[in-house]
């Protein structure tokens, strides 16, 4: 006990620099890991084809289904929605933009499923 107390008192400037450096490196590592996780991706399935796109990169994606059906999927500002579709019921274009984990938009006539996969937890289970 005496030894430990002695140790603490005798901490020198150099020791604090080492501690600070280690903490800094750990902090940067944590930030990097968190940033990686907060990205997530968008999974788009049309009939049996599946492709994925990062959700934090803005882009427009044209989907032509096996039935010739057309949908325009937009990823912007970390959200994804269906902007245009040639389907009859318009359910997909009338769906709110999705961005939380496992939120999805479905276009039944064109067999299109757009799903978000990330770590933004969703309070709603269904």
């Amino acid at each position: 006990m005496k030894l430990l107390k002695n140790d603490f008192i005798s901490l020198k400037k150099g020791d604090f620099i080492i501690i600070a450096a280690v903490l800094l490196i750990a902090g940067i590592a944590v930030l990097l890991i968190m940033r990686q996780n907060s990205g997530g991706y968008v999974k788009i399935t049309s009939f049996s084809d599946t492709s994925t796109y990062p959700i934090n990169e803005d882009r427009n994606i044209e989907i032509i289904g096996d039935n010739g059906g057309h949908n325009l999927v937009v990823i912007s500002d970390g959200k994804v929605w269906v902007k245009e579709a040639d389907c009859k019921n318009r359910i997909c274009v009338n769906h709110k933009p999705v961005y939380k984990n496992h939120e999805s938009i479905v276009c039944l006539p064109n067999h299109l499923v757009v799903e978000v996969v990330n770590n933004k937890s969703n309070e709603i289970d269904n």
Partner: protein
Amino acid sequence: MIRFLAKYRHFFTVIIVIGLIAGFVYLALKTKDLKTGTYDNKTYSGIAFGTAIKKTIFMDNIDKCDEIDRSIDKILKNVDDELSYRNEASEISVFNRSYAAGGSYSFSPDIMLYLKKELEVYSETDGAFSPCILPLSKLWGIEDGSTEIPKDSDIKEVLKHIDGDNMAVTDEGLTLNDGEMSIDFGAVGKGIAADEVLTGLSKTDVSGAVISVGGTIATYGTKGADSMWHIGIQDPRAVNGEVLGVLDVTGGKVISTSGDYEKFFEVDGKRYHHIFDPKTGYPVDNGLISVTIATGSGFMSDAMSTACFVMGLEDGMRYAESKGVDAIFVTSDKKIYLSNGLNKRFNIRNDEYEIAKK
């Protein structure tokens, strides 16, 4: 030994300090994990049998989720094959094509049971729920994308052939006393599928699951420390996916919603939707815009959400409360009516609506 430690005491102190910090961080993260306290889970979103299906499965052995996913699909396919009037080979399709008025026809035990239950709800609701409304829905064709109002004379003609009083189910079989009727399970098919899925899940080691079959949602077991499932209820007047509120239910419930917003067209500002009043032959127009029912049976939640929508706020709510189910009625003036005791488990999420006082 002491001398050795003393010599490198600075070094050891630094190690100890870093170790303590790492320990605290680890504990903090661990506590957060414990608070969330959920089993591992996997979500599957897809399309099958002409409807959108979403399954989230919680279990310890996450590697088995894919297998569970496939077994649920198998159950859904069986129900669809058995019940869909669109399946030309199903018992019900064959019957509709070939029956003769007054004859008695036997079906497989499952279907006999569903027919009996349908007729029970028919009489309980004074005909608001009809098992034989198919000729009317076909005339309107809203499910298939029609945007025209049929001729009133055609509607009156069809009304003669959708009278449930002409239908009888005994142990011997089903009898229709009119030659131009059609039976279908359209109003309860998804609920029956949900029931079958819940039965299937009970034979597995899945801890919890929430399965959505075209908007009918089944909850099973628990996902961990939080014993409630939080089910978002669609705002009937907002874009798809926008919730009106969140209903908390335990596992083993099925939640069904009937609304005027799902399939409809408009003529001169008037909305024509897919839920018909079997007595008038026209889409229900009684001030309700959606009805949600949650109970232990998917058959009943599906049948009752339709029946209550047709019955209207007062009669519908009385029926729901007599059955002891959870009920959420939404009216066109943006009021929400809850069944007894539900205010503790329903959290409104949209300021435009208000919960009506009883």
